């Protein structure tokens, strides 16, 4: 039998690198892990974007971190979703929360009943009004797991808003506790094996070398190790033209909202994500339409904070993140703007795959093919979800928005849009990150109306459907009074873990 991998070198000492080290030590205890703790480049968004998807919670559970660790000790707060302002023309802001909209009505999904009511001209309220977590979040309230929401469907999931410095510190300490070995040095060169081009060692600036059977490149966009084996890159800028990210900070003034804010701007969009003490602000824009100076001024005008030097972004992915015995993860594998906060999610997901698909030292192409296929499918659908925000936006006057909306979408997104436009159906894709409810939140939130109503929804008598929708609204309103705000819930968690 081929020899198992027992020595892994993680290059990059940021959140992604330490997360990989902790997961490997925890889940594959026979594997020794060395971390070359070199600071990833400032353009690595998975290291800097404070908001995460709900999948982060599962990642922490899998590696044995508790709420006490990753929320209370790391100074994180909880988030229910994002509020999008200005993405849907003059309509009111909409909320994308990680929670279901309504329940099945008859044999049809809730959104089909909602679409039917709209098409029949008796609209009811905005789509997100039928989402318990969205309604709660608008009032600063959370829907904790197991919360009593009466007749309204709960099932809400939380993402996190982390404090990147404290969070990286936690993961480093945890990985070291699990037995990962740290080497504080900078990689300066890579030695490839003559016969097969595998990475033999990484030479460090202290004159030493790091050797191993597998090298995980967490160095950020430069992909310092993986790029030495080849630099093929699939560029997505024709669909995602934003190529600058300006970061700023401000003190958090009030109780952190469960919602992140994503506000459409003339040449991109800006965010506001309130952490426990610091609020992260930023402007994502296309340099073709806006100068860095103007962007800084616009951000300052909007929220009073001075951004630092903007980060340059080239959106796209490596078609083969894993080649031979070197796998790139995080920004070294896929670069996307922070819209919908997928940067750390994609890194976590890659780490999960490395753990569960760990090959032997030969790194057989068929095993890497399977890994790359899954990572590719996942990244492509996340890309589609992000493009979708621009493709169905309605700001025809601004050249940036006009161009973004006019770009012909990738085939997979085109299929989603065609199917949705016809009758509100969403086709299934493998390795999809965002649920049906997430897609619906964006599509219906931005006002894309299907051409016709679905026959299955029509099979329910109209009066009955309308009554069910009204009942749901009342149930959501009734449940709100029982839900906690951010502060109250964090106190509850603290009390619980003190016991």
């Amino acid at each position, binding site marked *: 039998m081929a020899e198992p991998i027992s020595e892994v070198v993680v290059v990059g000492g940021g959140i992604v690198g330490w997360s990989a080290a902790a997961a490997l030590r925890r889940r*594959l*205890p026979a594997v020794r892990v060395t971390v070359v703790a070199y600071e990833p480049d400032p353009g690595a968004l998975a290291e800097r974007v404070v908001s995460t998807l709900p999948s982060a919670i599962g990642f922490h559970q899998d590696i044995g971190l508790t709420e006490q660790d990753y929320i209370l000790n790391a100074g994180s707060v909880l988030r229910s979703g994002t509020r999008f302002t200005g993405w849907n023309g003059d309509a009111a802001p909409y909320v994308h929360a990680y929670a279901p909209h309504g329940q099945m009505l008859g044999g049809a999904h809730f959104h089909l009943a909602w679409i039917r009511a709209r098409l029949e001209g008796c609209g009811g309220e905005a789509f997100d009004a039928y989402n318990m977590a969205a309604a709660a979040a608008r009032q600063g309230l959370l829907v904790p797991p197991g919360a009593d929401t009466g007749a309204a469907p709960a099932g809400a999931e939380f993402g996190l808003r982390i404090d990147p410095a404290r969070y990286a510190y936690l993961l480093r300490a945890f990985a070291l506790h699990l037995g990962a070995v740290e080497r504080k040095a900078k990689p300066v060169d890579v030695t490839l094996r003559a016969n097969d081009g595998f990475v033999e060692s990484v030479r460090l600036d202290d004159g030493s070398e790091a050797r191993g059977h597998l090298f995980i490149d967490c160095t950020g966009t430069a992909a310092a190790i993986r790029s030495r084996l080849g630099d093929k890159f699939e560029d997505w800028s024709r669909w995602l033209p934003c190529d600058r990210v300006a970061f700023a900070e401000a003190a958090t003034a009030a109780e952190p909202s469960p919602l992140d804010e994503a506000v459409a701007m003339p040449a991109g969009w800006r965010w506001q994500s309130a952490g426990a003490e610091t609020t992260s602000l930023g402007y994502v824009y296309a340099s073709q339409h806006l100068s860095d100076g103007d962007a800084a001024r616009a951000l300052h005008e909007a929220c009073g904070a001075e951004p630092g030097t903007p980060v340059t972004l080239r959106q796209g992915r490596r078609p083969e993140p894993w080649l031979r015995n070197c796998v790139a993860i995080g920004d070294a594998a896929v670069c996307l703007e922070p819209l919908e906060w997928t940067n750390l999610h994609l890194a976590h997901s890659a780490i999960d795959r490395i753990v569960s698909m760990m090959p*032997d030292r030969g790194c057989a192409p068929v095993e890497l093919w*399977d890994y790359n296929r899954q990572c590719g499918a996942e990244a492509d659908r996340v890309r589609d979800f992000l493009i979708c925000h621009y493709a169905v936006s309605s700001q025809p006057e601004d050249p940036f928005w006009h161009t973004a909306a006019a770009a012909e979408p990738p085939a997979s997104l085109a299929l989603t849009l065609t199917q949705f436009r016809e009758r509100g159906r969403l086709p299934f894709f493998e390795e999809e990150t965002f649920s049906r409810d997430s897609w619906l939140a964006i599509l219906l939130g931005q006002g894309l109306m299907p051409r*016709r109503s679905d026959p299955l929804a029509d099979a329910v008598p109209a009066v009955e459907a309308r009554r069910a929708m009204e009942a749901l609204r009342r149930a959501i309103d009734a449940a709100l009074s029982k839900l906690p705000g951010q502060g109250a819930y964090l106190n509850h968690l603290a009390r619980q873990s003190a016991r």
Partner: protein
Amino acid sequence: MSLPSNVNVIIVGGGTAGWMTAAALAKLLPTRCSVHLVESEAIGIVGVGEATLPHIRAFNERLGINEAEFMARTRATFKLGIEFSNWGAIGDSYIHPFGAYGRDRGELSFHQYWLRMRHEGRPVAALEDYSFACTLARLGRFGMPSTDPDDIASTFGYAYQFDATLFAPYLRDLAEGLGARRTEGRIVAVHRDGESGDVRSVELESGERIEGDLFVDCSGFVSLLLGKTLSEPFQDWSRWLPADRAVAMPCRTETALTPYTSAIAMESGWRWRIPLQHRTGNGYVYSSGFLADDKAAEALVGAVEGEAIADPRLLRFQAGRRERSWVGNCVGVGLASGFLEPLESTSIYLIQQAITALIELFPEREIAASDRDEFNRIIDLEYDRIRDFLILHYHATTRSDSPFWDYVRTMTVPDSLAEKIELFRRRGRVVKYREGVFLDASWIAVYLGQGIVPEGHDLRADAPPLGALERGAETLRAEIRAAAARMPDHLAQIARYCPMAA
């Protein structure tokens, strides 16, 4: 907004496919379509005692079918899986269970821990012993799955073995009760629109013309509309699935009433055995290139266990599918759209998927191309994935006792399958699709049952201490044995729950 149009649906053919389609449309889209089925009693249906997959329960439930009544009417038995004999090598036997190995709840599939114990040379029982469904099947017992997820008796599903010639009439009653119309008569001509090429009407022997907006071709192998009228090309898969004949012959049930279907590999194909309440269905699926029809019939007659009830009946077919299942205003459902041999009981499943997709994409009178294209995308995927799974059964063998087995053992398989096999062979990894019909346990059963033994295992299986793993496995096996022994005998369960009318 204009009122939704009422679509006039004409179903051509009244076998299992036809009446399943009629009942589902009448039940689920009563306000959107009128259902009119045309069939001729002079044309037989192919249905030879049908074995099904667990998915059919969801279909029946959606139609509001009472399970016990349906089972009694169709003289059905319960099915926990399929026993494959003589496939990997003569003398082999394994069960493909409708259920998990172990509890299937941890982060890692049970077979990985099992592989590790084997790789470390520990004495470990057959994988089958760690499956509740397999154990229950081997004991000839059956009880309903527990709804308590902590109970080991919740780790399985089930399907039915029933008389397909009785299923269609059962659904006909249901469909007609829901307002579906039926016309008796042979179709002698199909009339098309000169401009669009769409089917406009079918003409009966009596001269009557039946017009419609949407035609569902359930005419079976004849493929009257899709194949004969619209000439949609057929993708031939016989280079991988060379069986093109079956000879069928029912007999009295004389041995135990097994809660599973048997698929016994033969010299030039395989033989099915499907026990129903009143009889046992038997048939020999073979390749005419390797075996003469009379030899096949002879082999079948020699192999059946009970007294024959009818003479052997011959069926001809070809593995493959139409390039598209929905062309113009005509949708093929069942054999009219493609054929895969009944090795894994997928015929009714494919009908069900086509109906589900048709309902989800139900068109207006003016059919949108996006509905049609999406339907075809979904159905093509289903066919292609089942195809790979079936090919695996033939290819993963050491048999070299006949030209037939020499051929399938050495043939080139599709790349999509070769990759899957290689990934399993390396470390027991199952390439699966969230939307695929067969779950991990199905692939694992066939791989291991037919001699594809992984060289390595998932490294995560090395995390727990070996001793704890062995004790856990032993506890699990004992728990399965004890829980299975508490379940009723299959025959007793049927007698109590769903006996056929005397």
